[in-house]
């Protein structure tokens, strides 16, 4: 479904805001990881072979861009995918709906045409 790629254009504004956050390979890796499951900063630091301080900085940048949210419970700070991803899903579904709506408007016309032809044929048969 290549037309879905067009939807990327819709994201460009949101992406602009996130570009700084996403221009780093480690941060993209962190997002991908959090897409699979929530993780603590310590987990992430270990996984990406970084110091805690380094990972905290990366998570901070992602958090500011709205891509990640964090919550501290006791001494552990848990990171998860942030609200922006949900907005994008809603935007994508709406875009997808508009595509199908446009398609179905055309399908209406085709079906109307078939209906019309059928009526004419029936009339001819009766004559």
């Amino acid at each position, binding site marked *: *479904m290549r037309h879905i790629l067009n939807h*990327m254009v819709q994201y460009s504004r949101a992406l602009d805001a996130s570009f700084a956050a996403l221009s780093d390979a480690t941060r993209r890796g962190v997002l991908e990881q959090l897409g699979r499951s929530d993780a603590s900063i310590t987990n992430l630091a270990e996984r990406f072979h970084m110091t805690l301080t380094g990972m905290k900085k990366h998570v901070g940048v992602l958090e500011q861009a709205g891509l990640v949210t964090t919550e501290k419970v006791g001494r552990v700070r848990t990171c998860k995918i942030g609200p922006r991803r949900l907005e994008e899903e809603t935007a994508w579904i709406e875009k997808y709906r508009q595509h199908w709506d*446009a398609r179905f408007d055309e399908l209406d016309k085709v079906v109307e045409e078939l209906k019309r032809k059928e009526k004419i044929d029936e009339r001819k048969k009766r004559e």
Partner: protein
Amino acid sequence: MNARRESEATLMKNRTTVERKSERELVVTRTFDAPARLVFEAWTRPELFKKWWLPKSMGMVLHSCDMDVRVGGGYRLAISHGGSDPGEFFGRYLEVTPPSRLVWTNDEAGDAGPVTTVTFEERGGKTLLVMHELYPSKEALDAAGTGAADAMNETFEQLDELLVTPGESRGRS
């Protein structure tokens, strides 16, 4: 969003709904003011299908459309976008039950493509169409839509390049 405008639109024409029913499923519904056999015909006869599958607003051109609508039969569409080389979309029909049910595979993306089921349910001369897309995994659906993962990565790779050579990119933009 705009509730008033939406309700006005509903009076004018039948509404298309899309719901992500589960992690792997998307469901699209729409009612047509015609008997099921006519709607079914428009999905299964290439000369009719061609007329509506790519409305102008999508900015794409359907170059060819072959459909062998029977169980095990294949279909193949060649579509281009903005002057690009045509991309091919293909698969095969798993179920063909006129005028109520069509099931096909979408094989252009390999194993990541969904299985599409379209049902046509006639009620008082109108037809409720339900299109159901079942992806092999949550990741496949995410990649097709929200993430558009490949496109994203491509965008980011381009961005990386820009960041590596800021002087050049500044000159161009």
